[in-house]
């Protein structure tokens, strides 16, 4: 049965030009898909989207839809103009957690496509900004059977609402020489420890884990996660002097003076007269720049671990916050190391669940109560690596100074410093 296709003069203009067109893709589902249900859903979706383009307004409203046993993971969407566009009047998105690091086989993608076209609109995105596979466009009735089907062969919903969210990790050790940790393992241990908190939203607000294997932070962990894990190293970087010479022979001395030596943020590099590189590792802050420019010659050291920053988020409500260093360096090798990483996450989430206000991100709570109180709350001693510089304001009561100083010296002695 031929459907009455909505005219889409504005959307049609998005079919011109060289970049692949999402409108052409939706039209293919409308015009070529063998399932009449999908033809109708995508036709009405295009109709509503054209209406949005004409009026410059959105017409989706939220609601409550979930699968049996879960309280989150689905983004419900009900159309405000469903009378005009009835086939897409319920158009929910299922958030599904990708494999850590976003590795797939084509067979898996095909299996997901087969299941999705049985129940959904046929539209899917790899991945949303939180990191989920987004299956866009299912009716309330069809969310359960679609979830049941993919859940049986290994997929689970991600987080939505005030809960632990789907985590993200970079390609990392699977294909990157900069990787300083097993990103996949950290990612899965962290998020899968909180499966209950992912599926049953009961926290003050969202909580995100992101893992980047090095300070290049390809996952945006510092700026966009409550719990950022960044790979780093604490011994000397490795320098292959022969390769340094090769680079200089290739592009010339000036290029490397201008693009490596003078770009070091802590002036830890100098070029010797024989075109070898001199690195002052005590001054190096592991910014990654010289490694990025000379990947054949420079590599992370062997004593690898992670730096953990807490409290990154975007504007709402108190303004943008970056994560703050709470653990300057942590080894992540033995099972005990990983267990203590997960325990730290539990401690932080518990403290925040207890003390955070409704709709207050972890970083906002730290801003409200102060970093020192937060550290006390989670049982971590203060460390100068947590700050860019010490306080500037003299407005503080300091009658516990002697005791605090004693504690510092005792800790230093214990660490053999």
């Amino acid at each position, binding site marked *: 049965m031929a459907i009455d296709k909505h005219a889409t003069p504005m959307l049609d203009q998005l079919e011109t030009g060289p970049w*692949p067109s999402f409108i052409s893709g939706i039209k293919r589902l409308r015009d070529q898909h063998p399932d009449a249900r999908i033809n109708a859903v995508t036709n009405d979706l295009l109709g509503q989207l054209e209406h949005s383009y004409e009026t410059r307004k959105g017409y989706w409203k939220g609601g409550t839809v979930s699968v049996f046993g879960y309280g989150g993971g689905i983004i419900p969407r009900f159309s405000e103009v469903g009378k005009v566009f009835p086939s897409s009047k319920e158009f929910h998105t299922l958030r599904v957690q990708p494999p850590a690091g976003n590795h797939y086989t084509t067979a898996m993608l095909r299996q997901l496509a087969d299941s999705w076209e049985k129940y959904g609109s046929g539209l899917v995105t790899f991945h949303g900004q939180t990191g989920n596979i987004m299956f866009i466009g299912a009716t309330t009735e069809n969310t359960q059977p679609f979830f049941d089907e993919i859940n049986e062969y290994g997929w689970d919903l991600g987080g939505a609402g005030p809960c632990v969210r789907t985590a993200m990790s970079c390609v990392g050790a699977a294909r990157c020489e900069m990787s300083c940790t097993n990103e996949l393992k950290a990612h899965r241990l962290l998020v899968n420890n909180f499966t209950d908190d992912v599926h049953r939203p009961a926290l003050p607000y969202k909580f995100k884990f992101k893992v980047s294997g090095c300070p290049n932070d390809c996952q945006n962990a510092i700026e966009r996660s409550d719990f950022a894990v960044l790979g780093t190293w604490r011994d000397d970087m490795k320098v292959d002097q022969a390769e340094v010479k090769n680079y200089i022979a290739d592009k010339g001395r000036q290029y490397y003076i201008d693009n490596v030596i003078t770009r070091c943020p802590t002036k830890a590099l100098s070029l010797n007269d024989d075109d070898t590189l001199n690195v002052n590792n005590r001054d190096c802050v592991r910014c990654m720049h010289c490694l990025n420019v000379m990947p054949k010659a420079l590599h992370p050291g062997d004593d690898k671990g992670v730096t953990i920053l807490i409290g990154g988020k975007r504007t709402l409500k108190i303004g943008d916050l970056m994560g703050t260093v709470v653990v300057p360096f942590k080894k992540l090798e033995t099972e005990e190391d990983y267990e203590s990483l997960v325990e730290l996450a539990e401690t932080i989430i518990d403290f925040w669940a207890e003390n955070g206000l409704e709709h207050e991100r972890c970083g906002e709570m730290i801003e409200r109560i102060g970093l020192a109180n937060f550290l006390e709350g989670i049982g971590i001693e203060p460390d100068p690596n947590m700050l860019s510089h010490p306080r500037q304001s003299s407005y503080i009561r300091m009658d516990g100074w002697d005791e605090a100083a004693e504690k510092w010296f005792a800790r230093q002695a214990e660490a053999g410093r």
Partner: protein
Amino acid sequence: MAEMREPIESGCPDPWQYMHPVMRKNFGMWKYHEHPRPGVLLHVAYSGDKIWTVKAGTQRILDVFTLRKLCDIGDEFADGYVHFTIRSNIEYLVSDESKVQPLIDALEGAGFVVGGTQNSVAMISHTQGWLHCDIPGTDASGVVKSMMDELIDEFRNARMPNRVHITTSCCQINCGGQGDIAINVQHTKPPKINHDLVANVCERPSVVARCPVAAIRPAMVNGKPSLEVDERKCICCGACYPPCPPMQINDAEHSKLAIWVGGNHSNARGKPTFQKLVAAGIPNNPPRWPEATAIVKRILKAYKEGAKDWERIGEWIERIGWPRFFEEVELPFTKYHIDTWRGARASFNSSSYIRF
């Protein structure tokens, strides 16, 4: 009603089984990488093994036909293993160099765009917009399609001083995130309140609590409990709208676009930075948003001509100074560029550093 089945709470799947065998074999043992051409990376392991990555941009909102086409290409021309980047590009992994060119040809032949590596303009990371979001001030996929049509050559070629991450967001919550260039909705008028609906739809105390400037207070309007906004305080951020849809912030005329620059999440050469406002009041003009794209292109042109190798947009501006940036991109500097939020003082110039 059928028996409800208990979910299997399997969480995040283990990717180990889905990784290219060469990646499994050399996990954590990679030595270096090269960039043979835009869109292609070569990684070499300490074992001597090599793997080539071919990266392609797509429309991101994939229909199952397109997804299967990507799979067909992966089966016929690659090894059946793929990886998705944070910006929704698909990467094919092959362990045989002779497969690289045919794979590129197949992807380009099917309408995908090979590129997006190193110092290119990467695929724009974006939000859901009018296609799926409940609070959008504009579309997302359409804006991105329009911009990528114009920026495609910079995606295909790695000719920029350093990588350029562009993001778009269809409201001020900015799910699109920080970017070297961010194009975000900026509302310019307070919400229009439908007082007849507020009491039935909104949890009033939590809406009051949501306001970052304490401009919302409970009130009786037309004999009904509702909320009112002190419009002198209101910063038009739209935070009250998601929990209270009768407080409509979106406006076809007064919801504008703003452009921010200098966001960078890497630690390389300097600490991560947040994006800063450079342009606002840009019309929200579907289906092609030409005004916003024109400004983005001006910024990219000035950056491409003026920045040194490896300088990201924010670093280039730090070097040449903001006054010159505004000159070079022919954008007005206004009182609205001066921060008014907490911590604003840290952005003021408290020195005699002036460039002439």
